[in-house]
């Protein structure tokens, strides 16, 4: 690949070129000044590109060649579940009867779409072991916030206004405390013990009559199952709090343990992780929320109802937290998740989890001799190595991650969770072959060797990408957030 500046679309524009084909204007032309009030017709034209259709295709093809996706190569990004995105999903989401329907059409004209929504909800109810599911939240963090708002409404409906605190383990995803804040709560951090699991004593210290909820990821971000989950549930419930399940790691426990059976009152799922909605370079996602009975009255509006084989939306929900999103959520992502679940079936989803976990444990054991493994026990779908040993030799985990780029891999999640020094969080998923896992382990082992023998090659990595490490300090100190014509 060439190490040259890639032109911006604005830099290849030529006055007079066009890339569109608008419908023929078949009504009388009129003068704008007769149509708009004075001062509301823009004086300066928006400087959008002027390019031909081929220019556009070449430009974006060049950009795509400078991007790594799952289809390009292995992507063991911990906590993100970068599994294969099946192509049938993409086809289904583009069926005209799904893609070109308007959310405000009469319900009688969209029964097929509503049937998909309803059946997906039913499937997710069974998978999570909850009593009801809303599909509406647009992403995981949005689901967290939605569920916390419901928990708040539940407490307030009981006349209980002093529950202002949400407990979050120190290993939690950053969205957990942020969602708690946005839902109007204060966050209390609960410590992990030496074993990487929630410290029950610390939990007991913080739980009280001001506890609204405990947010928990299980397995946690270290890939470890919180074995004392029932005890935790009892502690929180006894104090009158609710238990919230961050479903980011559901790929680890499908058909093995359900949040609903573990004592959780609310759960969000990331359809773009476990259920193969593509990540799209950062979104769109989808973050459905499942709840137990006593939270059902607080579900966001509207709720889908099935009666005599007819699907309708119910808006008359006096205790609802209201709307969390216009319309009904990211329908296009539901279609992909639904198609996936129907492609897998019950035995398929069980195999998904078994192989996701087997693959992670296999890699962990292959890499264990070469890196520090702070929590040495069977992991679930992911595990966290520490680069402490390499750091002593002057090479940081960031360097090793960058070196992996030279081998054609997307690096693992690094420096997360926060309770592991120089952490490297590896999640292979079930869709990778043993050859891929082995080749990646071989690369990482070779890098560990390079750290001992030739650290510069790691410290200065990457060497083969279209660009070297970028100056992030400069980007933040002198922000250039848009193109400006020279």
């Amino acid at each position, binding site marked *: 690949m060439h190490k*040259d500046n890639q032109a911006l679309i604005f830099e290849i524009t030529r006055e007079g070129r066009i890339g569109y084909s608008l419908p023929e204007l078949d009504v009388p032309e009129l003068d704008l000044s007769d149509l708009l009030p004075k001062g509301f017709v823009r004086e300066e034209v928006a400087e959008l590109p002027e390019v031909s259709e081929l220019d556009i295709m070449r430009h974006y093809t060049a950009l795509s060649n400078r*991007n790594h*996706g799952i289809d390009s190569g292995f992507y063991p990004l911990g906590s993100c579940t970068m599994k294969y995105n099946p192509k049938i999903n993409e086809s289904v989401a583009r069926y005209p*009867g799904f893609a070109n329907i308007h959310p405000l059409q009469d319900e009688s004209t969209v029964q097929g779409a509503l049937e998909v929504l309803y059946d997906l909800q039913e499937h997710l109810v069974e998978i999570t072991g909850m009593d009801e599911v809303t599909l509406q939240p647009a992403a995981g963090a949005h689901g967290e916030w939605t569920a916390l708002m419901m928990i708040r409404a539940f407490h307030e409906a009981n006349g209980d206004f002093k529950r202002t605190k949400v407990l979050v383990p120190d290993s939690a995803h950053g969205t957990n405390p942020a969602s708690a804040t*946005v839902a109007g709560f204060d966050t209390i951090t609960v410590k992990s013990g030496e074993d990487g699991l929630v410290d029950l004593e610390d939990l007991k210290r913080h739980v009280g009559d001001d506890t609204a909820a405990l947010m928990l990821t299980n397995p946690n971000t270290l890939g470890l199952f919180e074995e004392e989950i029932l005890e935790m549930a009892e502690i929180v419930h006894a104090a009158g709090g609710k238990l919230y399940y961050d479903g980011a790691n559901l790929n680890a426990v499908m058909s093995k343990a359900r949040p609903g059976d573990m004592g959780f009152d609310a759960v969000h799922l990331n359809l773009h992780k476990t259920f193969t909605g593509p990540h799209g370079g*950062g979104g769109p996602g989808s973050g459905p929320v499942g709840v137990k009975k006593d939270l059902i009255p607080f579900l966001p509006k509207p709720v889908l109802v099935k009666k005599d084989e007819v699907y309708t939306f119910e808006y008359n929900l006096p205790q609802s937290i209201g709307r969390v999103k216009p319309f009904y959520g990211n329908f296009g992502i539901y279609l992909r998740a639904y198609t996936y679940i129907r492609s897998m079936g019950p035995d398929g989803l069980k195999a998904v989890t078994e192989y996701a976990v087997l693959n992670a444990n296999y890699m962990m054991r292959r890499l264990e001799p070469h890196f520090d493994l702070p929590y040495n026990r*069977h992991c679930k779908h992911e595990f966290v190595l520490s680069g402490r040993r390499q750091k002593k030799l002057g090479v940081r985990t960031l360097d090793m991650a960058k070196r992996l780029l030279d081998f054609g891999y997307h690096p693992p999640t690094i420096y997360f969770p926060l309770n592991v020094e120089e952490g490297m969080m590896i999640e292979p998923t079930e869709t990778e072959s*043993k050859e891929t896992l082995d080749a990646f382990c071989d690369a990482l082992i070779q890098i560990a060797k390079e750290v001992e023998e030739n650290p510069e090659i790691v410290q200065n990595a990457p060497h083969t990408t279209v660009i*070297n490490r970028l100056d992030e300090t400069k980007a933040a100190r002198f922000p250039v957030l848009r193109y400006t014509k020279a």
Partner: protein
Amino acid sequence: MQHRYIPMTETDRDEMMKTIGITSVDELFEDIPEKVRFKGEYNIKKAKSETSLTKELSKLAAKNADARTYASFLGAGVYDHYKPIIVDHVISRSEFYTAYTPYQPEISQGELQAIFEFQTMICELTGMDLANSSMYDGGTALAEAGTLASGHTRRKKLLVSETVNPESRDVVLSYATGQYIEVVTIPQKDGVTDMAKLEEMMDEDTAAVLVQYPNFFGQIEDIQTIGEIAHAKGGLFVVSSNPLALGILTPPGKLGADITVGDAQPFGIPESFGGPHCGYFAVTKKLMRKVPGRLVGETTDDEGRRGYVLTLQAREQHIRRDKATSNICSNQALNALAASVAMTALGKVGAQEIAYQNIVKTRYAKETFEKAGFNVKFSGSHFNEIVVDCKQSVKEVNTRLFAKGIIGGYDLGLTYPEFANHALIAVTEQRTKEEIDALVQEMEALHA
């Protein structure tokens, strides 16, 4: 079992178990307490082959009335616009759609640069200084604008015009409730924000005034004056704007907006039953460090080559955790890419032309309705939408229209009781003169 998405063979599995030192995969799940262990399989539908599943789902899709088969006059925030065919070809490149958030810039320059270009195009259309990489949708973008304004001004009240999309207003209320912010509605008068009422209501406890441009009724609000009223009392001015209209309308950035938000769905994104669409969020420079979500910035590598990175991340949840002002993580990157491609295809000239077509077609529909004796509400300028008095139940009118291959307008009485029996009819460049004429004729026939 063997499945096309799971490549491991039995031999692979046995070798791997040996390396791990186990004899059964079940051993890996022994840390799950017996009491909560799920036994057996989920009680869900059995797996289907590719062929039978596509057959089943095609049938479900065919049960829905789509805008390719029917002439749709529904708008109200989601529009059937020209989607350049090239858009789907670009976003189908799997290097884009199977990538995660571009956290490793060396192998994500494509996505990062595409977002940088998106940010630039949104700035060009809105006249704002900077834009983020996208939000979930226009409604949640507006809601986050409200909470940003409250945090910035340390005031706990928002004034929201009644002419803002009712679904978006509902979302604003939910978000505001989360942060104990009061939301007060400014009534409409003649289809636009009631200026006298606004002046009365605006006070020094108000964090921001939120309006929509063009508004929910398709009217062009005098946002310059509204902005002046908001600023006079130290509040921020937030404008929710259909970016397609900004191909011609004076951009909010030139009329005093501090924050401009909206949905880029009109640019190449399918209606998709309401989502996923693509919120955008643009601000003036002074609010740069308070913007929610991801921002892409330009920088260089050690050899002076230009490149792009996620920047100013100290604002975001993964760094600030409970001190973050927004919890957004996933956004709508792929749809921002779709919108970028559509904005690029339309380009400088097409963006003006498409906005112009929408204005003249709406005008044509208005005049045709009036000629047929209908009362079309509000005397101001229209973009995309007109309010037509049907003098009978809109639901009934729409049922009859549907039989003629037409999807009628939005039943305005559902959210504005004073406009019972009024339809909000949307006309885009996709609707032909013939279709508009047919709509009016059919409605006239019902009337008679």
